[in-house]
Each structure stands twice: as structure tokens, then as C-alpha cells.
């Protein structure tokens, strides 16, 4: 028996519910022996498949490291957590849930700021006016740095935010934020507005394929069977396109 195909699925929250529902809809039964505390499970009818229950950001990391073959996680986490993500992970298909936009938002009271160009100008003049750099609160360090660099903005500081990012500007901890939003209602409740060109990424949950994992033929076959069973448009084609990109260094 060869090494098992490892599929990582979210261990908690809405992503878990939606993923399990998707698997069920495809007639795939995830068995979790030993109840909800167990971190490894199986897929009924597949001898060589192992299910790993991980947090969504752990799934992104494990896919990038090649320790799991397939995983369900958000594109935002893949792009934030994994360096050089496009060479390590292929997004086979969006799954239609877990939607979240990563956006740049500023106080509504900043009536003079509506675009990244405005923010660039404010950042450039900030130190002279306030004796410090403009501060952006976020937990998306990498996405923020890349996006700001793509707009030529260098003169700002990131303030690490470990929760309730949207409250940082009113509390005086930061001037603006980069955070995820689904409906925008949390931003509005905190008197923040999204910049016109401030959408960094429109993210949703994806079936992601590790390009760094070992992919012996039995694993490919099993992955093909499972993916074909899932009722998601284009997902089998997505896997087919991903597999030839796998690095066969080992």
C-alpha cells in the first residue's frame, strides 16, 4: 500500500460546515473516528485516503509545504501565508462559499480620500504633519505590502492586528486598515469606507492542490475520483491542469 492521499478540510466554523455539506452532496462520507476531537479521519470507501482536520490557515501552510495533497481553504490565506504561492499551490476551482474581499478601508470622515492615489498622497505628507508614518492595521502583512508596493506606496507602517482590526482607527491605534469583508456591514458599523480601487483580492474557498507534495499515481487516481464526485463546476478540469505542474524533484 502506498502513502495515503491526504486531504485537509477545515476543522471549525462555517468553512467546515460548507465543506462537509459539499462532500456529502458528492456522496463522500467523511469518517471521524473517536469523535470530534480527532484530527485525522478517513473517507468511506477509499482505503488510501486520509483526512486531516486543520484550521484554514494551517491548510494553506501545509499545502505550501507539501505535507497534504489537497485542501479546502481561502485564496486570501493561500496568498498571505505561503511565499511564492503560485509555484507551490494550484487553485483547482472556487467552491462558491467562504467569500471574503480583502480591502483597504479608511475612515468615512476622510472625505478627501477615495482612491489609493489619495492614500499615497496622504501617506507622503503624513510624517511632516504628525511626526510619524501613516499606520495601517492588518493581519494581512504580505498582501498589504505587495498591494501597496504595486501602487508605489512605501511611506507607511503596518501595525499588527490580531483581531477587531476594524476598530483600530477609531481607537487611535491605526489610521486605516486592510481587512476582509463580506457584506461591508462591519466596516460601515465602524465608520470605515472601502477605497474605490482598494479591493486587494476577491477571495473565496477553493479546492487547492499542493504542487510540492509527492504525487504517486495511486494518489492521482484517488484524487481524480474524489474530485469528479464533487458537484463543483470545472473542478475536475482544474485538478487535471494542476497535476502536470507538480514538481517531480524527488
Amino acid at each position: 500500500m502506498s502513502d495515503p492521499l491526504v486531504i485537509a478540510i477545515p476543522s471549525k466554523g462555517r468553512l467546515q460546515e460548507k465543506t462537509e455539506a459539499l462532500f456529502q452532496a458528492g456522496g463522500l462520507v467523511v469518517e471521524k473516528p473517536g469523535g470530534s476531537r480527532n484530527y485525522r479521519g478517513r473517507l468511506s470507501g477509499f482505503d488510501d485516503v486520509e483526512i486531516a482536520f486543520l484550521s484554514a490557515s494551517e491548510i494553506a501552510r501545509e499545502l505550501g509545504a507539501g505535507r497534504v495533497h489537497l485542501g479546502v481553504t481561502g485564496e486570501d490565506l493561500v496568498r498571505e501565508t505561503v511565499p511564492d504561492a503560485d509555484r507551490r499551490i494550484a487553485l483547482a476551482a472556487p467552491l462558491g462559499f467562504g467569500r471574503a474581499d480583502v480591502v483597504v478601508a479608511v475612515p468615512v470622515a476622510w472625505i478627501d480620500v477615495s482612491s489609493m492615489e489619495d492614500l499615497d498622497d496622504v501617506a507622503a505628507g503624513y510624517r511632516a504633519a504628525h511626526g510619524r508614518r501613516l499606520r495601517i492595521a492588518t493581519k494581512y502583512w504580505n498582501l498589504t505590502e505587495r498591494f501597496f508596493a504595486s501602487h508605489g506606496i512605501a511611506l507607511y507602517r503596518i501595525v499588527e492586528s490580531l483581531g477587531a482590526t476594524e476598530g483600530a482607527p477609531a481607537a487611535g491605534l491605526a489610521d486605516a486598515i486592510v481587512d476582509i469583508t463580506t457584506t461591508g456591514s462591519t466596516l460601515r458599523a465602524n465608520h470605515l469606507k472601502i477605497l474605490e480601487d482598494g479591493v486587494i483580492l476577491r477571495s473565496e474557498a477553493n479546492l487547492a492542490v499542493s504542487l510540492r507534495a509527492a504525487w504517486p499515481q495511486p494518489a492521482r487516481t484517488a484524487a481524480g475520483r474524489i474530485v469528479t464526485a464533487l458537484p463543483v463546476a470545472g473542478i475536475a478540469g482544474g485538478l487535471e491542469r494542476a497535476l502536470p505542474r507538480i514538481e517531480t524533484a524527488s
Partner: protein
Amino acid sequence: MPPAPDKAGGRLARLFGEAGATWLDLPVLHPVDPFLEAAGEDIRRRIFVTEGASGERFCLRPDFTIPVCRHHLAAGSGPARYAYEGLVFRRQAAGAPERLETGFEAIGGADEAEDDASTLALAADGVAALGATGLAVSIGDIGLFTALLSALNLPDAWRRRLRRSFGVPALMAANLARLAEPNGSENTAVDEEFADAARAGDAKALETLVAETLAGQGYMPGTGRTAAEIAGRYLDQRALSETHLDPAILRVLEAYLALEYPLAEAGDRLAAFAADAGLDLAGPLALFAARAAAIAERVPTDTIRFAGGFGRPLDYYTGLVFQITAAGSDDPVAGGGRYDRLMDMLGAPSPVPAIGFAIRLDRLDGGGGEGAR
């Protein structure tokens, strides 16, 4: 290439010592904050960051200027000169992430023209002492460019934008093109009462509205942008949306950025340029002439060229910038400049003039190696 032992002094210890420098043996690891505060968050992508035992963030020094300035601040002394040699560390797509540099910083000197000239001359002497031949020096002047923007009476927002494009030709071209085309897009995504106050040109009323909004939405007073600042910039932007960079001014800027002269004639040519454009640049041009004369006493001026567009985008550079190339390669073997605003950013109670340079030993050393290209 093996690094030279730090403690024993570097290859140029004697030359720098004669120039009055104290030799510094600085740590490799430094708190990351001063680097990010001075150069902005963007530099984080190019430096190596690590953590101390209690979570404090350090970086491997990406250059020596900020460590030397911090040393000077901590020492709390008056004017001083420093020299160093050691590895610096930068993440880059190609090439080794560490390289050997030696350099010199003069902090607190009062005579800008003399300090500029002696520092530039010392860099040229240092490079020559390391065996480089066929030296060519390029110089630029950030102070002169900033003065030009002021003399052209450009709006603050435009000045800021052009200043932070200075020395990055592609960005400068894009920004000039952007300012030259009619803008037309007034910011319409604001409430009607704000727009009414703005249309009435009532700055005070607009400021009051913004202040009430900030207070009503629970913003901590005194922690960020003020109502006056927001209202002021809104009115400025509104005015700018109806205008664009005058073609005549655009031509002046483009002509200035394309200027290139041997240093010996640059002063006269720049004076003629200012007169033609009807601009008063007397102050900065007097400094330029004094500096050029002081340089001519020390360095053969036929090796030095001034370029109007040569500069650096970082806002702590304020005056002279220069770089030196040697025969056989266009990659600079030394670079330096005046950074009168850096000490202040690092916490000095008042601005401190400073200038310095670094020499790329990796491009000079080890005949047959990279330096021999």
C-alpha cells in the same frame, strides 16, 4: 569573499582616520523599527527580519547609515565623523544576499558646501585607494529640485508626488503624464452637506462638519488626521480636479530633468536655465556654485557630471547625491548623499545636518571576482 576582520579596522582605516573619522564596530542585528520608520514599510520586503527571545523584532543591518546615526544619537555628542566596514544584508532576486561595504558618515557639520565637497572627495579617494581606475562621478541635487518645485508654485499634493518620484525615471514620467492630463473626476462619494460646504468654498464650515463627524463616530481626538487637515486637502483636491499641470510648466520640468552637464559648467548653465524659465533659484544656485568650487579644489572636475534628474525618492535625503563608477562597469562602486532629515526621524530633538557614503567592496575586491568585470 571572506569578510575583513571588523575590529582591526578596515581597508580604508588610515584614509578615513586622516579625515577625522572614529572607527565604529557596530552590531549586525538592529531593532527593525528605525529602518521602517525612516524608509517606510516597503523596505521590509528587502531586509531580513528576525525575533529576539522576548519577541522584539530585529533586522540584519541593510546598510550602515541608520546604525551609525543611532550610535551618534546614543553617544549624544556634537559634530562627529564615523567610518565602518562590514557586511550588509539585503533580500534580492539575484545575487548574494550579503555583501561587504565600507563607508563614512559626517554628522552635524555646519558648512554644507565644504562638507559635501570633502565627503565626495573622500569617497573618490577611497575608491581609488582600493585600486579602481577610470572613475566617473555623477551628482544630483535634491535641494535644487525641491526648490524648483517651490519656485514653480505647484500645489502641495503635486510637489509631494513629484518629490517622491525623483530619481525613479519611470515613476516620474508616469506622474508627469498623469498630472498633465485633465483630471475631471471630482470626488463624488461624499455626503451632500460636505459637498455644499465645499462648493460654497466655506473651509471653516467644512472643517466643522468633519470635526463633528469624527467626534460623532468615536474617533479618539489627537491621534490621527485632524478635521482641518481633511477639510483642507478636500478643498485642495477639489480645486485640482478642475485643473491640470500647465503645459509650459511641464516643459520646464521635463527640460530640467533632462539637463546634464560637466560640473565645471553646470552652475552657469543652471543659472541660465532659471533665468530663461523666469524662476528665482538664487539661494540654491549659490549653494550649488559654492559646492562646485569646493569640489573643484579636491577632485578633477572633468570626471564629474551633474544630472538634473539624478536623485533618490526617500524623503530623508535633502541635498547632494552622488555615485561613482569605475572603468568596465556601469554599476556604481560607491554612492552617497546628504540626509539632513534622517537624524530628526530617528529621534534627534532638532534637525542635524549629515552626509555620508558607502563603497561596494564586493564590486572592487578580489581581482578575477565580481569586481573585475
